[in-house]
């Protein structure tokens, strides 16, 4: 076990974690933040994407111990109170959500994209989100939702 101090969705947290525990397991199983999803635990699907010091990372590939000193934002930290993040709003309005299991990962990855590039074009959106698998939508509605947002 090791002690980890970090900022999680704007709050400072101190927890002790197992040496082999992933950040995803820490979030889901211990910190009661099940929004980040576990669909592969191999860094292949992006369902577990969180922001770590401003970078989008797969929480399943990050050791919880390595979160020490970092600033983590999960999908639960994207909205401000009842006000959705623009990306969240766009996905709901544009039909970019079906089963929703991929959605938390898309929300975080897309928010990250829009932070660095406020009006991405089609190919930029597709490339930036190519690490996030969606099995339901065929990506069309996700693309349209985010293109709409990019043009706003």
């Amino acid at each position, binding site marked *: 076990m090791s002690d980890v101090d970090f900022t999680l969705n704007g709050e400072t947290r101190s927890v002790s974690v197992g040496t082999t525990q992933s950040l995803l397991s820490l979030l889901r199983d211990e910190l009661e933040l*099940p929004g980040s999803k576990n669909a592969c635990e*191999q860094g292949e699907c992006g369902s577990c994407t969180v922001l770590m010091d401003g970078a989008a990372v797969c929480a399943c590939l990050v050791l919880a111990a390595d979160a020490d000193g970092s600033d983590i934002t999960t999908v639960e930290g994207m909205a401000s109170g009842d006000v959705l993040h623009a990306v969240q709003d766009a996905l709901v309005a544009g*039909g970019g959500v079906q089963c929703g*299991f991929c*959605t938390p990962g898309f*929300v975080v990855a897309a928010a990250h994209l829009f932070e660095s590039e406020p009006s991405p074009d089609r190919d930029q959106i*597709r490339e930036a989100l190519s690490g996030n698998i969606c*099995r339901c939508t065929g990506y069309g*509605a996700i693309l349209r939702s985010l293109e709409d947002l990019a043009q706003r």
Partner: protein
Amino acid sequence: MTVTGTRTRGGIGESVVRPDGVPKVTGNFAYASDLTAEGMLWGATLRSPFARARLVRLDTSAALAIPGVHAVLTQEDVPGRPTFGQIVADQPVLVDGEARFWGEPAAIVAADDPDTARRAVAAIDIEWEELDPLVDMEEALELGEVFRHAPVRRGDPDSSGPVVVEGFYEIGMQDQAPLGTEAGLAVPDGEGGVDLWVTSQWTHEDHDQIWRSLDVKPGQVRQHPSGIGGAFGAREDMSLHIHVCMLALRTGRPVKMVYNRAESFPGHVHRHPARMWFRHEARADGTLTRVQARILLDGGAYTDTTPAVVANAVYFAVGPYRVDNVHVDGYGLRTNNPPAGAMRGFGVVQACFAHESQMDRLAAELAMDPLELRKRNALATGDPLATTGQIIETPLPTTDVIDRVAAMPLPAPDESEDPRRLPGGTGLTTSRSDVVRGVGYAVSIKNIAFSEAFDDYAEARVVLTAAGAEVHTAAVEVGQGMVTVLAQIARTALGVDRVAIVPADTGAIGSAGSTSASRQTQMTGGAVLEAARAVRELALQRGDGDDLTSEGVWRSGELVMTLDELCESGPLSHHTRFRHPPTEEPDENGQGTLHADFAVAAHRAVVDVDPELGLVRVVQVDTAQDIGLALNPQSVRGQIEGGIMQGVGLAVMEELVLDRGVIRNASFTDYLLPTFLDAPDVEIELIEEPSPWGPFGAKGIGEPPTISSTPAVVAAIRNATGRELNRVPVRPQDITGT
């Protein structure tokens, strides 16, 4: 009655947003894998490492001795019926002396935390004697390992046509790969019963199997609807349901189980691999005179839904075409390959790849335009279905879907050197000058809802209170958007805007049937329409009015009773059980009125191929689909695009690689799924000719997009390369010929 609808917001025809959209984007939507309970234990599973093996020794004592381990159970611990299964209960709850597929559960554990549970699984002392697995379909047929043989004999067996084409076709095993893996939480009720939240497509069917194996009374198991991360057929048959209940009842504590991805691959049924031989005969003008086919489907070790999948493959073997002489034999075979059952398209996917490949082959033989050939033989209302002889009484716009898709503009040739638009993608393997474009078409017909005399029904209850209406149903939302559409139907039928869907457990209402076979919009939608109309009638009677809106009851344009006043003496409620028109059992020749409704679709695929490297990029897939009526245009589009993506996946990349029954690529690293960069552009034409029994004329829409998109993509690759390509998925070496 009159349906006003005009003053109702969020009724049919609008792209109403999902009620679960906001919880899903904020991470607050609870999936089965997110549930917890006070004092909860974690389950884990020990699995067979062989496709076939005799269980020599199984000793749980070392595992039980680990601190924090509360139960280790084997087949001997199953309290009731030792087997389960939807059509035939032939699968042991846990290995019963012989493992019959790779990954078959042999023992289950409950422990304080997931780590301890995993350590306990590793500590179980188990010895296997590996046996020779049966993995070849032809061999299984020779050995008589047949779940079902479905024959069709129609017309003159000796008829023949002057023009003949034959082909042999193969389909690899596709995985549904829903993003949410199998998960469940069982909570004992302290009185010998259990409440279960689990990934399921049909809670009542599961329930009927679970209580039998637990040896409790039916009402003592309550299966609740739960948040589900996709299904596509994978949850039509049970996975960990009985296991997690057994552990909960044995320990007296809530138990949660979640499969990891590696377990999920063998942990659910898959699309049946197929080997098919087809012979088409025609006159010189292209009129089909005879179709003969032999279809083998690999069902794995247990029955699951294989008999119904075989039926679909056989009855839709000809596709949406007229022909008077048909001779088909379909077999579902028992092997030691991974389990096979339902996946989107359910048997028709396999048959359609073969019959559409044949139609192209025949067109080439006749030197005829492939679409012209299809139109010449297009099945229409009033025709008998070529296989079963059932007269099609519902609208069937086969010619229309073909014409509409053919009339859609083709994408401009791509000159771009941007690797994101080239076959092989950002691997920078191909340059534009090496790329050839191809175009291909395919057409399909699919049955809607359950067939062959199955008593297919859906229950719903609509309750009107001063706060609005509630729709109670056990129908499972798996992501497809049923909850949105049911509320829209209720709003339009009632005239009331505020409608909430209340998911009901198996004890609270009767079955809504399975969320499969493209059936829920028509079936539970039909039930909701019936119940909502009845409640509206009750309201008009109670208020002595002629119209109902969100404000209340109206008479001659005047509000005569508010909703509050209307419901003062209690809520208005109606419960209904909706059935589709009855269907028949097939006779010994496969003849009869076997199906309740049909839908047709046509697809056109445009591909860019690097023939030297065997790389494909699917540029665009356009479709015209017969949908009855678009209840929610945005949802319709979402279903069509998602379905096409899965069809494209089967065409060019998705396959479980098997080696003596063992899956060699049971991970997302090795089982390739289409990503954003693989997604084609999709243009859609909707054909709206009302179904006679779908709510407001709507038809099921979920499966057709997956069916003919696969052969359309392959036809396009053939068009680009001149290769025969008789197998999907098409691999690079199939294109390069090396």
